[in-house]
């Protein structure tokens, strides 16, 4: 591997790589992101290799493992080029047919195509699937174009040209100016303008400065950072080096959570490859600019995603936040100026440099420019990663891209912003998605988790869930957070177990107010899920407290399972499967649940054949007395 010691050499290397690519040569791209790997992508890739060998096609067809294209619900995803044919939910057993049909005979395997549920039509090309068609995939679209382990692939699509441009045609101030003009706001939390932090660090007199990637992605339910760093690690690295040049830093860190082992492998590999090519290290591209970077694995603590805690963790200590009278941009890691940005924020940087701030600002709203990636999960038909321009409505995301709620259920709320965010109800679905509008609605953008909930989700339980989550994650250093969360959890647990009292809602509101005094944003924003559910779903809280009723029929302690004697056909399914042996039944005898023995596991409810639908849930009213023994014969 030769070092690229000048911008010209970089362009030469790129030309050589591109010249070797034959666009007419078939290429089989299989998503090798963690989602598809969990659905068996590795086995599919292996099957393709064996099958191609069997047909003697190994040299005539390329196979590669790409980053995540986002449609994880339907993985493993296979794309065949040329033609951009997209096959979904591919199993190793489908591989021989794909090779013999599509590769050899250029025919499409119909049964593996996406079927539009609305029209019943089959869709061949990826870009025409509604899930993708309604997105603006500025960043994510690169994922599928490259092998995540190949620097050559990244160079082939123009990789490191932004870095080269910055180092040779722009002064640090120019870079700063471009980022400022783009008004790029942080994608990891509060939406703080990136240039402000950069400028603050740059202006700090200390000559030792750091730039840092926050890939801790603690928000449960969000996985866009994972997809980016796994799928296109070089783009993050390139963004980081550009930031370092602008700020005047020569060292950087990439903080990745250890729960993402593939991300750790891919980013380390990318750094090694870039170092071999002279794109990281001393005298980058012969410019005289030095930059080294280290990967630091997180060890499982949500609070370490917070900037000051993350920096403490980088120093090798327990990641506890500190008060930020002085910004971390001025005094961060080992008290040196440190710029921390989220993975997606860094991923935007090379594109802004290459295409210009004006290109970037054509997307988005007045205050929030560009696109944002959301992870659309929960009770939604098309789950996966969704990249849209800021300013689209929640309804567009949920209905047009997400395909609505599965199983004919009713939409109830969408949760954004993770444990610091809130729940947004149906009535607000036409809300425009940007940093400021979401905050106004009592939620926040956060890192982009978007968890859809349907009528079966209890909103009090969701509030309890987040507080329970935070109870384990509060570092315990400051009292308002540590004690406030504990007390809130106690009240919420009471409400969801039927022990709620009048005044509990007001008590929660009072506790929330006192938590504003917490040391870091974890504690300050912890009440948000509670406050937003009280704001929009107060009636659910009241039903729990006043009528001992869970309207969503979700809180285990407040529901009972009951078999409707008029509907039971004595099929014996629930009788056989009940793990608690709580069902009395028998041939041609109406089945009855023994409420004393029932553990409320819900198995009977799940297994009762749909056409009978005899098992129901009851809340807030007494369970009808069991049918007397002598009347049970059918």
């Amino acid at each position, binding site marked *: 591997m030769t070092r690229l010691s000048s911008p010209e050499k970089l362009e030469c290397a790129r030309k050589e790589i591109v010249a070797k690519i034959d666009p007419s040569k078939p290429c089989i791209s299989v998503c090798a992101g*963690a*989602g598809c*790997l*969990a*659905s068996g992508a590795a086995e599919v890739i292996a099957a393709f290799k064996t099958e191609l060998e069997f047909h003697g096609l190994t040299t005539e067809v390329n196979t590669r493992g790409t980053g995540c294209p986002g449609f*994880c*619900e339907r993985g493993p995803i296979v794309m065949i080029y040329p033609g951009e044919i997209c096959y979904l939910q591919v199993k190793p057993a489908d591989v021989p047919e794909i090779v013999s049909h599509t590769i050899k005979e250029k025919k499409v395997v119909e049964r593996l195509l996406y079927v539009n549920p609305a029209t019943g039509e089959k869709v061949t090309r990826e870009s025409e699937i509604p899930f993708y068609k309604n997105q603006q995939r500025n960043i994510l679209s690169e994922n599928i174009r490259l092998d995540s382990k190949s620097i050559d692939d990244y160079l082939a699509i123009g990789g490191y040209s932004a870095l080269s441009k910055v180092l040779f045609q722009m002064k640090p101030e120019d870079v700063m100016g471009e980022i400022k003009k783009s008004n790029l706001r942080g994608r990891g939390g509060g939406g703080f303008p990136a240039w402000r932090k950069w400028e603050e660090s740059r202006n700090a007199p200390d000559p030792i400065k750091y730039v840092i990637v926050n890939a801790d*992605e*603690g*928000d*449960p*339910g*969000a*996985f866009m950072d*994972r997809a980016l760093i796994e799928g296109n690690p070089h783009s993050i690295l390139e963004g980081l080096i550009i930031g370092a040049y602008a700020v005047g830093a020569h060292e950087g860190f990439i903080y990745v959570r*250890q*729960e*993402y*082992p593939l991300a750790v492998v891919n980013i380390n590999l990318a750094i090694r490859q870039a170092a071999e090519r002279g794109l990281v290290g001393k005298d980058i591209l012969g410019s005289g600019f030095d930059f080294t970077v280290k990967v*630091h*694995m997180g*060890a*499982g*603590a*949500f609070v370490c995603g917070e900037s000051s805690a993350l920096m403490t*963790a*980088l*120093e*090798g*200590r*327990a*990641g506890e936040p500190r008060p930020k009278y002085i910004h971390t941009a001025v005094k961060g890691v080992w008290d040196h100026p440190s710029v921390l940005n989220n993975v997606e924020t860094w991923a935007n940087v090379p594109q802004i440099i290459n295409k210009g701030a004006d290109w970037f600002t054509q997307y988005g709203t007045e205050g929030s420019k560009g696109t944002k990636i959301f*992870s659309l*999960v*929960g*009770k939604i038909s098309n*789950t*996966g990663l969704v990249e849209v321009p800021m300013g689209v409505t929640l309804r567009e995301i949920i209905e047009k891209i997400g395909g609505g709620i599965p199983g004919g259920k009713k939409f109830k709320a969408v*949760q954004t912003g*993770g444990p610091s965010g809130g729940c947004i109800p149906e009535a607000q679905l036409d809300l425009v998605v940007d940093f400021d509008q979401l905050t106004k609605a009592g939620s926040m953008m956060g890192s982009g*988790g978007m*968890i*859809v*909930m349907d009528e079966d*989700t209890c909103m009090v339980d*969701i509030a309890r*869930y*987040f507080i329970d*989550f935070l109870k384990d994650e509060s*570092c315990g250093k400051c009292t308002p957070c540590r004690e406030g969360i504990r007390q809130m959890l106690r009240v919420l647990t009471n409400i969801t177990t039927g022990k709620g009292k009048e005044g509990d809602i007001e008590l929660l509101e009072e506790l929330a107010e006192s938590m504003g005094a917490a040391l870091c944003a974890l504690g300050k924003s912890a009440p948000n899920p509670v406050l937003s559910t009280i704001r929009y779903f107060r009636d659910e809280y009241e039903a729990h407290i006043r009528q001992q009723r869970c309207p969503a029929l979700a809180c285990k302690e407040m529901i009972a399972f009951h078999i409707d004697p008029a509907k039971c056909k004595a099929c014996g399914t629930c009788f056989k*499967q009940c*793990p608690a042996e709580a069902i009395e039944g028998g041939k041609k005898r109406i089945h009855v649940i023994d409420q004393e023995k029932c553990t409320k*596991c*819900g*198995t009977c409810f799940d297994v009762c054949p749909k056409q009978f639908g005899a098992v129901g849930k009851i809340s807030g009213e007494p369970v009808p007395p069991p049918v007397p023994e002598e009347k049970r014969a059918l």
Partner: protein
Amino acid sequence: MDIKRIDEIIEKHDSEESSLIQILLDIQSEHHWLPKEALNRVAEKLQVPLSRIQHIATFYKAFSLVPKGRHEVHVCMGTACHVRGAQRVLDAVQDATGIKPGETDADLKFSLETVNCLGCCALGPVMEVDGKHHGNIAPSQIASVLNNCD
């Protein structure tokens, strides 16, 4: 765990104090828990007080100060998995193994932990056994997955 191996890990990280967490993570990942001797050795080599190492080992969830079972079962309790029934998956795992989150069974076969998010949220609910993900898992499938572990 072999002291020589611990020394190798420490040297791989240039015996740097700032790499303390990374060193402990490497030991944890190879040995599946952090024995007292290992902590003592790290303290001695890096010249840091044992109390600081213990603070770290108890602060971060990735570390265990007690031996783990041969099979590590992680059930995701992240929001996406929660709304798709993670609690019932956890209940089924507890029934099948007889242990609660944070526990290891008496014959050191299974350890059970809950985790916040494995990043496969689109496939929720998700269970991970020895690093292998099982997506869209139904409570009724749990017993058969766990029975396949020896």
